């Protein structure tokens, strides 16, 4: 059933009894042309675009838990494309373009809200770095503008305007098309879209082994629901990618860290944008429900614990109270963690692997949500054609051997 105001009216008046399942719950078939391991946003988007753009519909998405239960459902929902390096600019802008029409494309309101992402500068060095981004983005045709201190305070009036504080505001870079989207809806929208093309979405199905033939080519996966044959396998398992790739004997340059986020109790709207300060490690936006959504940092040590340390949340709230002094009396409602997979250059890995028929999409670190549509789109093309999509081409696994790194973090100390 197409979602629309009309269907909502019709169903509303008849007791909402006619809504069909948003996706089926099929038993796994014996074999698929492509098996995607990981039912988060990136994996579901990959399956959707495989079916929609490449006509490959004999596809299964295997998810060990519930759809979107990993980082898709745990992030702070920020969307932006104002990256520094051309390779990143192309990738995240590709995603941004897809965000702009995603609700229509999926017939599912993913609530993409281009309310502006404002990245603060507090020092001369911050200003230099911020302006460099603005210049680079302008050349790449990506919107990003520099705001003076006064313009920043005007745009987001709840910021601390004091000049005698430890890190007064010096200016900021604003990407107006940046904003947020509803994370769960992205997973569900892609799942429903892929399902309608015939993709089998199989939850509670954990991959236990990757099976290869004598030549080394991948022929299937062993799962908790039995063996499933596969022409090609795409691994999109975020924090657990190393484990899955290890089943095929591929060692990944990844480290996994707990990353925390938290929300306040809902309050009436106080902020119009997403606000980030890399210098004092804080970022915040306000959800449509009214909760302040706050991103914290990663633990200092690798781990798979989804709790994370109290001191991390503490440092983040400290910074939030400093930037927004009127939030001190508000209250933290929920605090949670997710496991992020981090590469040496903090940029993702999208593409082929040394094993024939095995593809991988991982290493999104702390910033994968914003890329979801673009990531799925270029990964689907890479799997379908057996060669990297031009936008994905720089993000190979080989770059760590050749040294062609795409290091956003080193360039700007940007949490992304």
């Amino acid at each position, binding site marked *: 059933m197409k*979602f*629309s105001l009309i269907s909502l009216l019709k169903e*509303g*008046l008849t*007791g909402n009894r006619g*809504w069909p399942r948003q996706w089926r*719950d099929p038993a796994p078939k014996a074999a698929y042309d492509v098996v995607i391991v990981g039912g988060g946003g990136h994996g579901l988007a990959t399956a959707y675009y495989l079916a929609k753009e490449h006509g490959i519909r004999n596809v299964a998405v295997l998810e060990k838990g*519930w*759809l979107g239960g990993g980082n898709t*459902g745990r992030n702070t929902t920020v969307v932006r494309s104002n990256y520094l390096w*051309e390779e990143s600019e192309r990738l995240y802008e590709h995603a941004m373009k897809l965000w702009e029409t995603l*609700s*229509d494309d999926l*017939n599912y*309101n993913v*609530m993409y*809200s281009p309310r502006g992402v404002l990245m603060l500068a507090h*020092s*001369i060095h911050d200003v230099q770095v911020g*302006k460099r*981004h*603005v*210049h680079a983005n*302008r050349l790449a*045709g990506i919107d990003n503008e520099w705001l003076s201190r006064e313009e920043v305070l005007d745009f987001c009036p709840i910021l601390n305007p004091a000049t*005698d*504080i*430890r*890190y007064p505001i010096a200016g900021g870079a604003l990407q107006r098309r940046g904003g947020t989207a*509803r994370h*769960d*809806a992205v997973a569900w929208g892609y799942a429903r879209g892929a399902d309608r093309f015939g993709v089998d979405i199989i939850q509670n199905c954990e991959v236990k082994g990757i099976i290869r033939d004598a030549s080394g080519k991948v022929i299937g996966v062993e799962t908790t629901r039995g063996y499933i044959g596969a022409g090609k396998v795409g691994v999109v398992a975020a924090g657990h990618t190393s484990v899955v790739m290890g089943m095929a004997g591929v060692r990944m340059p990844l480290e996994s860290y707990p990353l925390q986020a938290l929300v306040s*109790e*809902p309050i*009436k709207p106080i902020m119009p944008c997403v606000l980030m300060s890399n210098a*004092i490690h804080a970022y915040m936006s306000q959800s449509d429900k*009214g909760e302040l959504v706050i991103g914290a940092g990663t633990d200092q040590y690798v781990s798979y614990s989804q*709790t994370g*340390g*109290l001191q991390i949340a503490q440092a983040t*709230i*400290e910074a939030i*109270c*400093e930037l927004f002094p*009127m939030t*001190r*009396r*508000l*209250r*933290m409602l*929920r*605090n949670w963690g997710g496991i992020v997979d981090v590469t040496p250059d903090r940029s993702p890995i999208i593409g082929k692997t040394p094993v024939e028929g095995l593809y991988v999409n991982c290493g999104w670190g702390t910033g994968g949500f914003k890329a979801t549509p673009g990531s799925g789109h270029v990964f689907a093309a890479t799997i379908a054609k057996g060669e990297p999509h031009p936008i994905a081409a720089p993000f190979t696994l080989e*770059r760590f051997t*050749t*040294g*062609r*790194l795409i*290091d956003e973090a*080193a*360039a700007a100390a940007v949490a992304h």
Partner: protein
Amino acid sequence: MSRFRTGAGGRIDRARGINFTFDGRLYTGLQGDTLASALLANGVHLVGRSFKYHRPRGILASGAEEPNALVTVMRDAGRTTPNLRATQVEIYEGLAAKSQNRWPSLEFDLGAVNALASPLLASGFYYKTFMGPRFLGSNKAWAKLYEPLIRRAAGLGRAPEAPDPDRYARRYAHCEVLVVGAGEAGLRAALDASADPHCRVILCDEQAEMGGWQLNAGSDDLVEMLETLGARPNVRLLARTQAFGVYAQGAVALAQRLTDHLAAPSPETPRERLWQVRAGEIVLATGAIERPLVFPGNDRPGVMLAGAVETFANRYGIRPGERAVVATTCNSAYGAAFALKQAGVDLAAIIDLRDKPDPALAANALKAGIPVHTASVIVGTEGHKRVRSVRLGKVEPCGIVKSTDSIACDLVAMSGGWVPSVHLFSQSRGKLAWNGETGVYSPGKDAPGQKTRSVGLCSGEFPADMRGFHNGALPTPDEKGAAKAFVDFQNDVTARDIRLAAREGFHSVEHVKRYTTTGMATDQGKTSNMNALGILSGALEKPVPDIGLTTFRQPYTPVTFGIFAGANRAGLFDPVRKTPAHAGADALGGVFEDVGLWKRAHHFPRKGETMHAAVNRECRAVREAVGLFDASTLGKIELVGPDAAEFLDRVYVNSFAKLGIGRCRYAVLTNEAGYVIDDGVVARLAQDRFHITTTTGGAGRVFAMFEDYLQAEWPELRAWQTSITEQFATFAIQGPKAREVLAPLVEGIAMENEAFPHMAMREGRVAGIPARVFRMSFTGEAGYEVNVPAGEGARLWPVLLDAVDKAGGAVYGTEAMHVLRAEKGYIIVGQETDGTMTPDDVGLGWAIGKGKRDFVGKRGMMRTDLIAPGRKQLVGLETLDDKTVLEEGAQITDTPTPAPGSAALGHVTSSYWSEALHRPIALAVVAGGRGRMGETLHVPMPGGAIPVRVVSPVFHDPEGARLHA
């Protein structure tokens, strides 16, 4: 005395009336009241509006689990606290509270029109609409029209308008046993544990008074137990203290409220305090929460949890209604019925779902004249702002429900049984076990590294008088009926919403939670989660344990941001590091910039001087005479040991084996990938002793990296490092007159050019102070850096300043330093480099020790991409018009009109007006830059491209004659 108050008993002080306002109306309560009990004592049941449908809501519970009664308490503009539960707010004289999320008033709320559209507002409706009309453009209607409307309608209370002036504190504590919850079980656990005087015990409870349910009885036992505990020196009692989070290895976070209950708190007293406790054992005595019954119209004001009714009656002396109906599936509600009867409330009926309730209880009820309807449920309620009557339904043996009588009442006390509070146990990552007999999850095995013990009701063991439960919605005759049976009161989630989610394929409990928002309100589902599970279990025809459980996340109840920030605000947000000469620089009118934690003097404007004029003057002084610069912020490390030189050879790209004693070398540090991450100067003080400088910002990072290599990679090396950044004050004296200025102040060092050449280091005295004097330069002029003990820095500074002044020189700041070094083509790590530049890229290939077997970064530097042609290289740029100062960070292209989406050749890394050259200069990194000398490139700007010429990055004294002068 109000007619809603009983004649005697309870924990309130009937002699002490307390005046307060709610929505501007003046009321009187009693000392000991919560806002909820005080409002009930005034006959006020309507206290809030629901989130989505704006339905009138009353007080459901008596404690932390309350979903409805959210209020804003106002002291002043900065001391306004939204979303507080009226059941937890203690009243004080003059308390001003108001209701939330209603307009224009609580009594008449226009938002209630939403209820008319409620068939359209079922779970997930917003994912299905708000996407068009499409002619506006994709996503436009959502972004411009619908979302702003939704945002305005959503949200609960308002944030304060001014910064919170209150103080918050933090404490750390260790104990052998932490007991959470001071009900009977918790008190006994604390008594037992603290009998051993060596066992430190902390007992905390979120309520103002310790005692939990015992406060309803007012027992003498309680007084005695509290007295015993209070007398023991090894016991710390923390009332008004919520344990809100359990972390790894027995770490528990507590939030203590200190002043919110006071009429006039001292501004000196912190409002709240964060306790971080590390406990050998965590004893959980957190009790149980009653589950509401899910029947149509169960949300009307006047419908309350039976346990809460009993608490209000016994502890607060409240008569919460005139005529009550008790609806239950649990024995404990009979107690509420008797308490109400005792309080003088007329009992219309007990409606028990069970066909055979506990015979003794039923008999007692009948004896008290209370009609008991067995196998019966409420199938509907009437009333708008207060329940007026309930409709009784009889459950036939076949399961069909027949609606029978209507019973007039103004109070419904309901109970669906009890659910143990396992939140903290679950946060400790312990495993929960399902108990089908009691219909609850209870604590199972501890997680590794945790030692917990659950005692009392939270263990899942219920006494006989608390048995009986129902999970999920009550049977109703009319599934399609328009009346709503609420599961999550605050988020307006009904039983039908959960069934709809199940129909649409949301079968995981996490999906249902997210799709319907059940359990996601500020109460975090304390009263709703088990019912939601029960309904889902019915809809999917799967037993509850097969459905799973949502994660219990910290905090247990919302925690004020302020306690996390503590005193770390404004000037204390981060430590400020000041150099020993800071006061001197300040007195000279220095303008400071933040570099890391340091304050560094950026420039020293004289009266009426602009920044540019000041910087130009400072540059001239250095080039023509002499300048004084405070370089104390540079990181400094002393490295000692027989293998110190070997260690340096391994970490830096340079070779140090042959560095003579008393000599210095510029040193470049790369990471394993082969990229420049720091630079500095290494001086050899003795065969086994080095003085190393790092960048200001990199000091901590470099020290940590060295320590990592020393401890983890090469533990066999006999070398030890000490940070000496703060042991020395460092002053640079630079310029053609540097020697002339410094020499008269120096003792014990031969200052002649030959005796003390460039890149040498000597120890002696300067102005009588022991000093390490380096001859080196970051300006291109001959110069010295004088290191004296930090404590002497403030004494040396004016001496040097005076000498420099007399020589016609000037003090200069970081901006002039930047200009001077750029004129000479010296890089700044973090400006010319960005973590992607090799030493060769920035013209430092010469620094790499060619004969070395290995060093950090060597393998990385040999990778194909790092030696490929076309890498970005450091060059100088001159604007063709000789006037325009380029903007730092600007991009460089080979065409003045790059197509949108073009790739850049590189970017401008540093750009200044050069006073020495009387023209703008810039440093840049450009693809294949060193092969482009003389080429014209372009810097595209919003107003058009600026043409530039590629030149050598060394603009000033390329031969270096001045350094050695």
